[in-house]
């Protein structure tokens, strides 16, 4: 069963079109990472799913219900951690957690205490004195303490230090074990790589690529760094070799998986001294789409000029 189902979703702000036909599904029990550059439409997508923004056209369903018309029903089963956590300056952290939890149908004291301890959070301070990281912790504690089926995180770890990011990762892993569904938009690729079953790359209001990391890597290139006895002069002419860069004796390039056999033979002929071959990181995949995105943008800018 699909917990989230988005088809041909469009959203316009006046003349600007933020989403241009976005398709995305998230299955039950799945952790899906939504990544993309600034302004790609991540937050807009999330806010439409939460019924905070109204779609211009298309379908956006959560638990099989329309995100706008049945927002209240949907909200009974989800919690949300926004990108920019804003609070009531005069209230204490503890008061805010209790209020949000009560709105979600009551507080589970045991969970609340556990998460406060894990995130090393002081709930007795007034919100105006919390740092960005602490505000984020508060929203995470409030969301995690609730007993829900779906949790939506928008850039959840932006303000957290590495130690707290790790706590967060453990929490998400536990949610996964409990069979809960998670949608997480992020810039922090390490989080997505570690936590997500599937990744959807969003750019210019569309999903440009989606799949498990393995699937995506399968189609992509390995990054090879090699030192050879004889110089690799004709390497760039080989099929399936991209981005050759020389760095002293060291040469690094990207290799298509389909051609890897021929490429390795070529390298062996030149006498390999050392070689490192790594699967692409999410960052590599991501950067490709980034660059394409910017190139496209440039082209359209030239066209309009």
């Amino acid at each position: 069963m699909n917990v989230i189902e988005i088809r041909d979703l469009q959203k316009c702000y006046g003349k600007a079109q933020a989403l241009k036909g976005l398709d995305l599904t998230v299955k039950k029990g799945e952790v899906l990472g939504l990544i993309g550059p600034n302004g790609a439409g991540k937050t807009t997508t999330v806010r439409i799913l939460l019924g905070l923004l109204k779609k211009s056209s298309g379908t956006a369903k959560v638990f099989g219900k329309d995100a706008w018309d049945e927002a209240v029903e949907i909200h009974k089963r989800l919690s949300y951690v926004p990108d920019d956590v804003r609070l009531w300056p005069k209230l204490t952290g503890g008061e805010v957690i209790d209020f949000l939890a009560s709105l979600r149908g009551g507080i589970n004291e045991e969970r609340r205490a556990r998460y406060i301890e894990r995130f090393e959070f002081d709930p007795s301070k007034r919100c105006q004195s919390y740092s960005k990281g602490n505000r984020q912790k508060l929203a995470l504690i409030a969301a995690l303490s609730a007993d829900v089926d779906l949790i939506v995180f928008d850039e959840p770890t932006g303000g957290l230090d590495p130690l707290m990011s790790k706590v967060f990762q453990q929490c998400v892993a536990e949610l996964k074990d409990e069979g809960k569904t998670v949608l997480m938009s992020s810039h922090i690729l390490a989080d997505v790589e570690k936590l997500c079953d599937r990744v959807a790359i969003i750019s210019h209001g569309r999903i440009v690529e989606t799949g498990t990391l393995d699937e995506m890597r399968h189609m992509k290139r390995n990054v090879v760094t090699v030192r050879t006895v004889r110089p690799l002069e004709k390497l760039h002419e080989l099929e399936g070799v991209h981005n050759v860069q020389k760095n002293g004796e060291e040469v690094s390039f990207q290799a298509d998986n389909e051609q890897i056999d021929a490429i390795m033979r070529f390298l062996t002929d030149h006498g390999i001294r050392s070689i490192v071959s790594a699967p692409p990181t999410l960052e590599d995949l991501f950067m490709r789409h980034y660059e394409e995105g910017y190139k496209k943008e440039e082209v359209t800018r030239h066209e309009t000029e």
Partner: protein
Amino acid sequence: MRRSEFRKTLLLIKHAFRIEKIRYLVWVAGIFSLMLVATHVNGQFTAEEMKEIVILSTGEPGMRMLVSPITEEGVSEISRFVFFRFSFIFSILFAIMSVQIVTRLTRLEEDASRAELVATSGAGRYARLSSALIVAFTVNLVAAFGMMLGLVINGLEFSGSLVAGLSYAGLGIVVAAFSALAAELSGNASSATGFSAITFGAFFVLNALANVTGNVHEDALGFESSFLAWFTPMGWTQEVYPFDDRNLWIFAFFLAAFVLVSLGAFYFVDKRDVGRGVLADRQGREHAPVWMRRPLGLVWRLQRGAFLAWVIPVAFLGIAFGAATEDLGVNFEDHEYFGEAFAEAAREMPFILTAVTAMVVSFYARVALLKMRKEEASGPLENVLSTPLPRLRWMAGHVLVGMAGSVILVLTYAFTQALVIIESPADIGEHLLGGLVQAGPVFLIAGLIIALFGLVPRRAGAVTIALILFFILAGSFFGPILDLPNAVKNLSPFTHADFLPENASIAKIITLYILGGLFAAIGFLAFKRRNLSF
């Protein structure tokens, strides 16, 4: 105070004028036009009519709170007469303008974290505060010239007009300095504005007392304030007498107060962290009490500060004004010519004051209801509405507090005022009825604010303040003073609520309440259907 701490002040001043120029222009143009129109309109009175009006107002202690002292020789001169009637309004305008300028350039910048950017980009620690004070000083001066121009165009003498304008600018800069101090002491922009408002409120009350306890000239031909006037900058403005004695030495008071209070503000800059106030955060509760976990409970928690900050002064003002108007008219019963007129005026006076209070309370309605917009644009509404709380239930809490709170405020005033005035408990009903009548326009305005929040959230702040100011100026109290055409006056809901409850048309009052409800309903429908707007 090291000089390097003022680095880049000039840059920030330029920046302020670039960002805020429209706002400043509107203030100056507004003050100029009001002066121009007020002088022109009041210039239509004959000398004899002016004299009558002065006598009528001077004779009533309650009315003296809202007018300024006037010399015996000046009672039939337009130059003195126009300030007799408008001093109060101009004082308020200059004060609001100054509070707004300083708070926007200091505390609001800080709340938006822009101040941190500026502070770390090479600007000195005092640059923000000193630039705000200099900008406020400059705009006040320009507004003074605007005022002078409004007078001179009406044929008034140049140097007197200039001194008159400057005397309000003097009040403005003192208020600006107090706002700067408030901005340093308080934890955020809204409490800074609150502190400033309370400060100005104290200035006003002292000044009102100075006028009430003042010395009335023979035959009520004007009056002088008592010594209390020296304790409030509003009083200093009135003591300048620009067209009579022209007490220029009083400007030393304004400048001294401006410098001293500003120094106080600079002192606290060193004592606190950027983004915080001096008044430290206390440790708070780790758990929310049960009542606060419900939507309405939270709304009350968020709104109670503003409500209490209004209801307490309003209750005290009711008592004070009630006491001041209690033996109204007694002094003049034997007056050969005005005796009867006084008796009638004396009875009407408390109801007029209730109406003026209602006009002021419409600002409370705005503050309380636009809290919703604040929650939406810079608060946690996004988080709140992603819980199963339906949008309209969230909204209903704020609407309830804003609408009911406004009505309660007006009734509180009518009630405490009545407590002092009435001779038998049976009379209290009449005063409460008067309150209910005057709360009608406020209820309608509250409805309008809700509708605007639903329909044009981003513009709601500016549009509501313009509407309220217009309604007040065109309403039952100021409309006739400004001699506005009926068509304009009828646009204000206040015009349709007669002062005396027995004169008020029940149909009209009920219509005001119904329209308020309808507008509110429009607001609800619009908010249910629209995007959240951040």
